[in-house]
């Protein structure tokens, strides 16, 4: 799937509350918007969010978007084990699954998907990007799916991060670049 991603592209991001799942989704949505696609972003909401898991559906399309709720993702980004377990079976055959290996640590049982485990949290912490594992994974997704461009993502970051935090903008950009460059961990190929 490394060529420019085909539209429509339906993405599910999931993890613990606090891992920045909604923000990562917003980056992808903004990028899609800047690229001229139709886009939608839908969070899970309600009391379940509190302390528990958070997830978010993002759709990119070149036609009007019907249901913004992604039930059969083309791409799944999972940042913890419960989320991975909850959504892995729903991924479309041939779909892309990117997991934060630090948190998930599982190998997939599905042979019909593209599986990309990266130890995002660990790498982020070791690279002075603590708390930006989410953005790292967006970078990885960019590399894997080519859904947008690094330039677009930089613009998306500028829209998503308050101008007051210039430093943060920079860190986010770094995280994208870093994420795009991480190779798949070989934990599961062994």
């Amino acid at each position, binding site marked *: 799937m490394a060529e420019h991603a085909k539209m429509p592209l339906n993405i599910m991001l999931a993890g613990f509350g606090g891992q920045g799942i909604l923000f990562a989704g917003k980056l992808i949505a903004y990028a899609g918007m800047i690229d001229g696609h139709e*886009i*939608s972003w839908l969070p899970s909401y*309600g009391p379940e969010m509190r302390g528990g898991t958070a997830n978010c559906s993002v759709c990119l399309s070149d036609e*009007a978007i*019907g*249901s913004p*709720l992604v*039930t059969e993702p083309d791409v799944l980004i999972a940042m913890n084990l419960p989320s991975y377990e909850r959504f892995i079976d729903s991924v479309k055959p041939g779909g892309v699954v990117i997991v934060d290996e630090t948190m998930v640590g599982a190998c997939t049982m599905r042979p019909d998907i593209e599986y990309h485990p990266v130890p995002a949290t660990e790498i982020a912490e070791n690279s002075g990007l603590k708390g930006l594992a989410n953005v790292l994974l967006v970078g990885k997704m960019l590399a894997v799916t080519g859904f947008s461009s690094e330039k677009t993502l930089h613009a998306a970051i500028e829209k998503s991060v308050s101008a007051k935090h210039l430093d943060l903008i920079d860190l986010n950009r770094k995280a994208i670049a870093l994420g795009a460059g991480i190779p798949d961990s070989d934990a599961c190929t062994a």
Partner: protein
Amino acid sequence: MVEKVLMKGNEALAEAALRAGCRFFFGYPITPQTELAAYMAKRMPKAGGVYLQAESEVAAINMVYGASAAGARVMTSSSSPGVSLKGEGISYMIGADLPAVIINVQRGGPGLGGIQPSQADYWMATRAAGHGDGHVIVFAPSTVQEMADLVASAFELGDRYRVPVMILADGMLGQMMEPVALPEPIDSRSLPEKEWATNGHGGKRTHNIVNSLYLVAQQLEDTVVERSQRYARIKDEEQLAETYLTEDAEVVLVAYGAAARISRTAVAKARELGIKAGLIRPVTLWPFPVDTIETVIPVAKSFLTVELSMGQMVEDVRLAVNGRSPVSFFGHTGGVIPTPDEVLVAIQKAAMGEQFDLVPYHTRLTGGAR
């Protein structure tokens, strides 16, 4: 071209209200309309307006009543149980011919129900916002852009016809973000003066009265009849609907709001399978766009209504079709979102000329696609 911003539906409603000259908001917290109130709380003080968290939905709607009587553009928002509580107040606004915009970001019911998206307040909105003979105009946006756009229309029509206007959204539309081109802010001073407003006669006119009490039955009937003449005009002039592939459609889906989005995808899928499906998406639920239904009657062989409820709008479709074709229903309720594939199965059934009410348990029995 106006630059688009990514916004939640709830926020778009709030921002659009501000741009439509609304400077008064009275509400009471409830999920899933939270972001709307939070946005207002942030913006109103800076816009020189009033954000007031009322002690309850009952108090909120009555504050709206007072603010509207004073001539202001005013808004309140809530979700299903909270809207039930506003029923008496809405009926009073109808009876006193007071405009205002009332948002219902629907959630699953009945009772406390759940907080996931739902369209189960259709009847409450279109038939019985409160007691007595009376209606509110009901808009049903299906995109965040439309949420922004319809707010302006809602204030417009409310003022023009002196009726409360409801925007019937749901948790999905309220929570989701889409790009939106925000309407230009209006200049409130350009709005026509409300001569009936109770804003102090200043010695310049006789006293104005805002009231819905008429102890003499004939007088009360007269006011209701006068209002119904306004309703008749609204029915003539304000119906709104969008059509998608209806020109040659043999199976016509009718769906609004979130359900219309899913239906649209399903219609596209059906076309791929060679089924001549089309979609009518009512944008006004009251007045119901019967004229649009009429346009498809000659070709349509059957109708399929899709709702996030046990089937409510389907009755309006049946009334409009009046026996000329079978009208079927498919839906999910309680916050369960139907998938396009499920709707597709229903389209296939309808295409075979069946009439059915596919409430969810049937689907599951018959192995529906979810």
